[in-house]
C-alpha cells in the first residue's frame, strides 16, 4: 500500500465532516462532524510522519487529541445549557440573533 491512499482517505473523511457540519441540524451531530474533521487531520499527520520518516507528525496527533478533548468539554457544556432552555439541540431553532 502506498501512503498516498491514506492521504486520499483522510481528505475524504475531512470532506464528509465539512459537508456534515453544513447540512446537519442537530448541534451534537454538527459537533461530531467537527470531531471527524479533526480526526481526519490526525490520519494525514500520521501518514505524513511516515512519508517524512520523522516522529513530529505522530506527536502532533497527540496534541490534536488533547485539544479535541478540551473542545468536547467546552462544547458539550454550551450545547447542554442551551438544550436545557429550549428543549431542543437543533441549530435552526437558535434564530433570535439575525440581520
Amino acid at each position: 500500500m502506498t501512503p498516498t491512499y491514506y492521504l486520499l482517505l483522510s481528505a475524504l473523511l475531512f470532506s464528509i465532516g465539512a459537508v456534515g457540519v453544513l447540512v446537519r441540524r442537530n448541534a451534537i451531530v454538527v459537533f461530531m462532524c467537527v470531531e471527524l474533521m479533526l480526526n481526519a487531520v490526525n490520519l494525514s499527520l500520521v501518514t505524513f510522519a511516515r512519508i517524512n520518516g520523522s516522529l513530529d507528525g505522530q506527536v502532533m496527533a497527540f496534541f490534536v487529541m488533547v485539544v479535541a478533548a478540551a473542545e468536547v468539554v467546552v462544547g458539550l457544556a454550551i450545547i447542554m445549557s442551551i438544550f436545557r432552555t429550549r428543549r431542543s439541540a437543533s441549530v435552526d431553532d437558535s434564530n433570535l440573533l439575525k440581520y
Partner: protein
Amino acid sequence: MNLLVAQAQQIEAPEIHYGAIAPVLIVLGAACVSVLLEALLPKHQRWAVQLLLSLLTLLGATAALVLYVTADDVPAQGVATLAGMLAVDTPALFLWGTLLVLAFGSILLIADRSVEPGGVFVAQAAIRPGTVQDRAQATKTGMQTEVFPLTLFALGGMMTFVASNDLLTMFIALEVLSLPLYLLCGLARRRRLLSQEAAVKYFLLGAFASAFFLYGVALLYGYAGSVKLSAIATAAAGTDRSDTLLFAGFGLLVVGLLFKASVGPFHTWTPDVYQGAPTPVTAFMAACTKVAAFGGILRVLTVAFENTQWEWRGVLYGVAVVSMVIGAVLGLTQTDVKRMIAYSSVAHAGFLLIGSIALVPDGEGVSATMFYLLAYGFTTIATFGIVSLVRNSDGEATHLSQWAGLAKRSPIVAATFTFLLLALAGIPLTSGFIGKFVVFSAAIEAGLTPLVVIALVASAVAAFFYLRVIVLMYFSEPAADGPTVTVPGAFTTIAITLGAVVTLVLGLWPTLVLEWAGTGTFLS
C-alpha cells in the same frame, strides 16, 4: 529499559529564556492560581480577590515586559526560545504590550458592578433562563467569578499566539484563546437566550474554522517536513514536493486565521456574537482577539510565505475588498448599535488586511498594521464601555432609535461617543486617521494603489453610518420613555477614559508608538 534510559540521557533539554517569556508565564501562572482561588475561597470574597489578582497579574506582566525591553543585553533581532517554538522579537513584544494594556481596560469593564448591580455576568451559569430562579438571580448581587480566570487564560493564549514561531504552537494557542471566549460569551446576566445562542454559534463556527486551520497545518507539514515557519519558508524556496500541498495548506491555514480576525466572507459569526455576548466580553473580543489574530497573520505571511507572495497576494487582495465592502454596506442597514460596531469591525479588518499584505522590505507594512491594531483596540474598548452605559429597565438599550436625543440627557457621554465614532471613521486628530494613513502609505509603497482607492471609498461609505448615530444623538428629540444614561463607577470610567485619551494622544503624537513599532521586524 536500559536502552530507554540511555536514549533519554542523549536528549538535551531545550534552552529556555525565562526573562523573555516572563510576561506569558506570569499571565498563565496567575490564571491557574485564579482557578484554585475559585475552588478554595468562600463566595463573598471571590470577586474582590479575583479582581485584585487579575490587576496585579497584568501590572506584573507589564513590569516584566518593560524590564526585559529596557535591559541592555537584549538582541535587536529578538530571541527564539523553547526550542524555537516562541520567537520574542520586536513585533511580539509590541503586541504583548498592546494586549496587556487592552486587557487591563477589559478587566475593569468586566469587573464593573456599578452599572449593573452585581456585574453583567450571570450569578450561576447553570440556572435555566426564564425560570423562577433566573428572575431571582437577575436582581441578586454577585456574579460567576470564573470570568476572571477565563479572561486570563484567553489573554495567555493570545500572547502565545502572536509569538508562536511554529504552526503547532500556534494551533494550541488558538484553542487556548478561543475556548475561554466561547464560555464567556454565554454568561450574560440579562437576555440570556441571546447570550447562549451567541455562545453556540461562536463555538460551532469557531471549531469548524480551527479544523480548517489544522488541516492546513497538516498539509504544510507534509510539504515542508516540519511545522516551523522558517522551515516552510526554506522549503518554499526550493523543494521537490508538490506545490499543491503548499497552496492547499496555505489556503486552509489562512481561512482559519481570517475567521478569527473576522475578515471578509468569514465574518458571519461576528455580528451575532458581538450582539449576544455581554458587552465587556464583546469589548475584550473586539480589541484583543483582533490584535492576536492579526499578529498571527502578520507573522505567518511575513516569515513563512514571503517568498510565495506573488502567488497568494491576489487572493488576499480580493478578500480585503470583500471585507471592506461587506463591512461598509451592511453596516448601513443596521439598527442595533452593537451590530453596527460589529460590521464596522469587519470593515476595519479589511483595512488591517491591506497592511498585512503590504510586505515591503523595510517592514513598514508590519509596523503600520501594528499601530492600527493598537489604535483600533483602544477606541473599541471605550466605545463598548459607553454602549454599556445607555440602559433602560431590561438592560442595555442598544436599538439605535433609543439613542435619539442622547446629547440632551447626557452631553458628556454623547460627546465622548461622537469623538470615538469619528476616530473609527478616521477623521484627523484621532488615532484612527493616523492608523489609516500609515497603513495606506505602506500599501501604496507596496504597489497596492487600486486597493487603497477602494479602501478610501469604503471608509467614506462607512463614515455615513457613524455620522448617522451622531446626528441621531444631537438633532433628534429624545423619546419620553427613552433610556437613561447610568453614571458609571470608577472602573468603567477609567476604562473609557483610557481608551478615549489614548485615541486622542495617538492622534496628536503618533510617533510615541510608531517609533517603537518600527524598531524591528520578525525573527525568521
